[in-house]
């Protein structure tokens, strides 16, 4: 029983049309605890609370079985690009 990582990913993908989505099962396989990172245009112009509400809504069915959901990132493609650029080490050459 429980929810699989794939189920979480597919619900997020179909509802939020993310540019990037990463789901980590932190439950040790029982499907009750996940960490998610999502990059979606649908977050544009929305504050953090509203972004998290979108994610929660996308996982409404799954949330009935998930005990812990940690939304580590809910950012726009623009923010993602900026984060990646600042995270990348400068080329040495």
């Amino acid at each position, binding site marked *: 029983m429980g929810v699989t990582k794939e189920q979480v990913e597919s619900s997020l993908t179909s509802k939020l049309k993310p540019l990037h989505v990463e789901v980590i099962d932190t439950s040790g396989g029982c499907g009750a605890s996940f960490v998610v990172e999502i990059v979606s245009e649908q977050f544009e112009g929305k504050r*953090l*609370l509203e972004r*998290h*509400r979108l994610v929660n809504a996308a996982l409404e069915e799954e*949330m*009935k079985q998930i005990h812990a959901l*940690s939304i*580590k990132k809910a950012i726009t493609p623009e923010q993602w690009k900026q984060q990646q650029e600042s995270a990348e080490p400068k080329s040495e050459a």
Partner: protein
Amino acid sequence: MSSRTAVSAVFRSALRPRHNPLLSSRFSVLQTRLLSSETRQAIDKAVASAPVVLFMKGTPETPQCGFSRASIQILGLQGVNPQKFTAFNVLEDEELRQGIKEYSEWPTIPQLYVDNEFVGGTDIMMSMHQDGSLAKLLEEKDVVVPAEGGDA
């Protein structure tokens, strides 16, 4: 009007399935519960009971869940004035535990309210703690312990 109430009460008791204590807790989880106006009023009061209100699992002294613990730690780091803070232990009250989720339209616990307004859960508190917006909010609402004048 009163007869209708009486009739529906009869219907309810007639239609209510036999109480099975083994099943009931499971049903209450699976059912989509409608928030009764009584529960809603009770939560309204809870939310308004202090400027900063946290609905959590366990107590601030002994949180029963890592997310609740993290939330308490964040509020502590922010220097929230204990006199302006109240925590509700949802584990002590099943009605509250389910009701608060519907009330806030938020599926998880803990939940933070500041000045009657829903702020979010642990992830949001953590982000706001890191980017400084939580400190700003709490200062604006005047709920932090006043800075002591220089003495260590």
